[in-house]
């Protein structure tokens, strides 16, 4: 048998090539796992959404829990949404005023703020705030219920946890977010009026008559419709992440975190799609 000397350049090159090949195949394997993990996640989410639809139209609807969730999502988010909406109105007015003054178009300020708030800022900012507050809350709550076996306990007591926990939350979020958006828009108008009065003096009636003369009813519809989708996205992602959390306590934090990140991202994506559709239709 021929005796190879591992120090020869040929053998060194072969060893190097083998090592590189192993590294490459490991990397390929990792990428494949990541890709299949992503596809698996997409498939799981699709089946989760399918289950939500199925359970929504089932005969036994958990109405009491749905009302409780509406209260939790709607009423308890009011102060945060109100403050944010009002501040956005003030900030938008103060930032826009100098530019409009340069063009001699300061009288257009109420109308511009109204359109911005109704079409874009109100729905998107409210949805992002809710993605943080409600999405993380759902992810953490359902995640901790999973970890502490409360979801399993519900299952073994012959109750469908999907119906009780998920459907009620998703529907409550879908219904409450548009209401919160309308509330934020209203507070945004008041904030804008305050912003106008910091530098000048405009009566309440004049401000609102100018604002409402610019906007039309058709401006409300796409904004409200996309708010329903924002609510559904936040509810579905929050519940999905919590419901599918791992078994350790660490997974509760991960579920809450990924619920916020993914739902915020999807809100922006849905907004982009909604703007395109609105642009085509109007």
């Amino acid at each position, binding site marked *: 048998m021929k005796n190879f000397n591992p120090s020869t350049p040929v053998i060194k090159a072969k060893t190097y090539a083998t090592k590189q090949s192993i590294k490459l195949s490991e990397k390929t394997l990792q990428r494949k796992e990541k890709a299949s993990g992503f596809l698996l996640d997409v498939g799981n989410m699709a089946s989760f959404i399918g289950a939500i639809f199925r359970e929504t139209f089932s005969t036994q609807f958990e109405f009491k829990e749905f009302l409780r969730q509406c209260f939790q999502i709607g009423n308890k988010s009011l102060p945060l949404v109100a403050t944010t909406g009002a501040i956005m109105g003030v900030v938008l007015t103060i930032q826009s005023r100098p530019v409009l003054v340069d063009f001699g178009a300061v009288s257009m300020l109420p109308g511009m703020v109204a359109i911005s708030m109704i079409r874009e800022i109100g729905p998107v900012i409210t949805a992002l705030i809710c993605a943080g507050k409600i999405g993380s809350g759902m992810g953490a709550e359902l995640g901790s219920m999973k970890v502490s076996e409360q979801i*399993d306990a519900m299952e073994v007591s*012959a109750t469908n946890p999907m119906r009780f926990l998920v459907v009620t939350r998703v529907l409550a979020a879908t219904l409450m977010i548009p209401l919160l958006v309308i509330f934020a828009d209203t507070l945004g108008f008041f904030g804008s009026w305050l912003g106008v009065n910091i530098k000048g003096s405009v009566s309440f009636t004049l401000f609102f008559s100018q604002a409402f003369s610019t906007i039309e009813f058709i401006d409300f519809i796409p904004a409200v419709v996309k708010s329903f989708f924002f609510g559904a996205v936040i509810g579905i992602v929050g519940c999905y992440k919590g419901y599918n959390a791992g078994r350790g306590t660490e997974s509760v934090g991960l579920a809450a975190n990924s619920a916020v990140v993914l739902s915020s991202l999807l809100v922006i994506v849905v907004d982009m799609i909604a703007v395109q559709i609105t642009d085509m239709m109007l």
Partner: protein
Amino acid sequence: MTEIHSQTAAPENSAAIHERVVEIKNLRKSFGSQEVLKNLSLELFKEENLVVLGKSGSGKSVLIKCMVGLLFPDEGEINVLGKDVINLERNELNELRKEIGFLFQGAALYDSMTVKQNLEFPLKRIHKKLSQKEVYDKINTALENVGLIDALHKMPSQLSGGMRKRIGLARTIIVDPKIMLYDEPTTGLDPITSDEISRLINDVQKKYHTSSIIITHDLDCAKTTGNRIVMLKDGEVYANGSLKELENSPDEWIKSFLSKK
């Protein structure tokens, strides 16, 4: 090689001898490459307290989760109250689950509900035709049975570990199950509370005539509650018999397990 030291021992109640409520045959369950249950077979007789002993990770909890359809085995048969659990439809499985009580390791009380609401939750869903007074009476009876009538309006966060286990037990027995599954009922409790829970398990068995599987690695709990003991090792039934038979076993592993507290 699995070593069976004794063939199935029947419960003390002679009337219940040979009436099987649970029959598990050749059960296998893997998580990825890890095989947790390997060809496991066991039986539970009517009104029997069967203790399943084994080290952590020997597949004890997986076994009872397979019995209620929380996990599905890779192979084998699970027959509970004459029904083949693996092949049941969801509705049929839910009907079967109404006959089974499951006490989770951490009691799994619903955090957002009071003790009363926790007890009402399964009761109103399983016995839908009960009047409000009947529901209230049943809640009171269940809480009296576990000695915690004063906890009615407390939140789970206000309860100690032992109290949570008792409320968990009350929530389970309130629907009058035929079979009780206890997942490590005394884990994390002090010796006195552990003893109280063990006695409570016996009381439940006597009062409600339940057949129970008690998953534990607490020997004191096993001694207090068990009519028969099954020892699991590496996902298989390693030994099966009464406590006395197992204590007299010459097997080194059984000796070392039973001698350690």
